[in-house]
């Protein structure tokens, strides 16, 4: 099990990406799956910083662990911004809207949740725990 604890700031997001990329490489994910896992964690971590910590005027960490099992790689992001379950975000209904009508935001959670093989969320001990799973054999 690998872990890292980073500050909950936008500046830390490249390190979040690098951590996930290393885990994906160790798991032997192909480029496509590795990209999607990294994108998923990046999107949720970005939301935790921008819509979580920054909006609430809080400081906190982005704590990451990566675990390999025989058939899966599991990345868990823990952060202590206000409770928020990304699964509650309604999926964008307007992906086929013309560009002048579609809202500029709201794509991040969609990209995150549709990009991984499984996603789970729980609020435990004052922390949002986001779990991202990719299958190693696909």
């Amino acid at each position, binding site marked *: 099990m690998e872990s890292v604890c980073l500050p909950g700031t*936008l*500046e830390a*997001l*490249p390190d979040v*990406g690098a951590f996930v990329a290393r885990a994906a490489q160790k798991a032997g994910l192909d*480029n*496509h799956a590795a*990209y999607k896992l*990294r*994108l998923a964690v*990046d*999107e949720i971590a*970005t939301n935790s910083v*921008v819509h979580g910590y920054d909006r609430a005027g809080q400081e906190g960490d982005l704590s990451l662990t990566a675990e390999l099992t025989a058939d899966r790689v599991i990345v868990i992001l823990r952060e202590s911004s206000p409770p928020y379950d990304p699964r509650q975000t309604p999926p964008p209904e307007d*992906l*086929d*809207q*013309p*560009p*002048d009508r*579609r809202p*500029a*935001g709201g*794509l*991040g959670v*969609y*990209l995150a949740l*549709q990009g991984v093989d499984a996603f789970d969320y729980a609020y435990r001990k004052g922390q949002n725990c986001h779990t991202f799973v990719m299958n190693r054999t696909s």
Partner: protein
Amino acid sequence: MDIAIAVEEKDGLTIAMLSGELNSSTAEQVQARLLELIGPGCKIVLDMSGVNYISSVGLRALLLLYRETMRQDGRIVLCGLTEMVYDTMFITGFLDFFETFATCAEGQAGIVRPS
């Protein structure tokens, strides 16, 4: 994980080449720089062959650039999308409105043809 933006004016076209990642650290800078290039009737060829990562923040920047270009009766095309950037833009519906070309040369030829 920075991004480089190279801009060239050629035959009435503005060719902008991005190299790096279009993410939460870089999107604002890219958006600000490219917005400067947009003027009435502009023709912008955005070479994305050096962009190996795009997140929703980057997509948002591209959407705002597209809208501003349309508002000024200009035209913007994307070239050389790498596989995963293409994939991300496809599943979010961005390829429904963005014109894309395989190479920058094709983009330059395509943008002067009627759409």
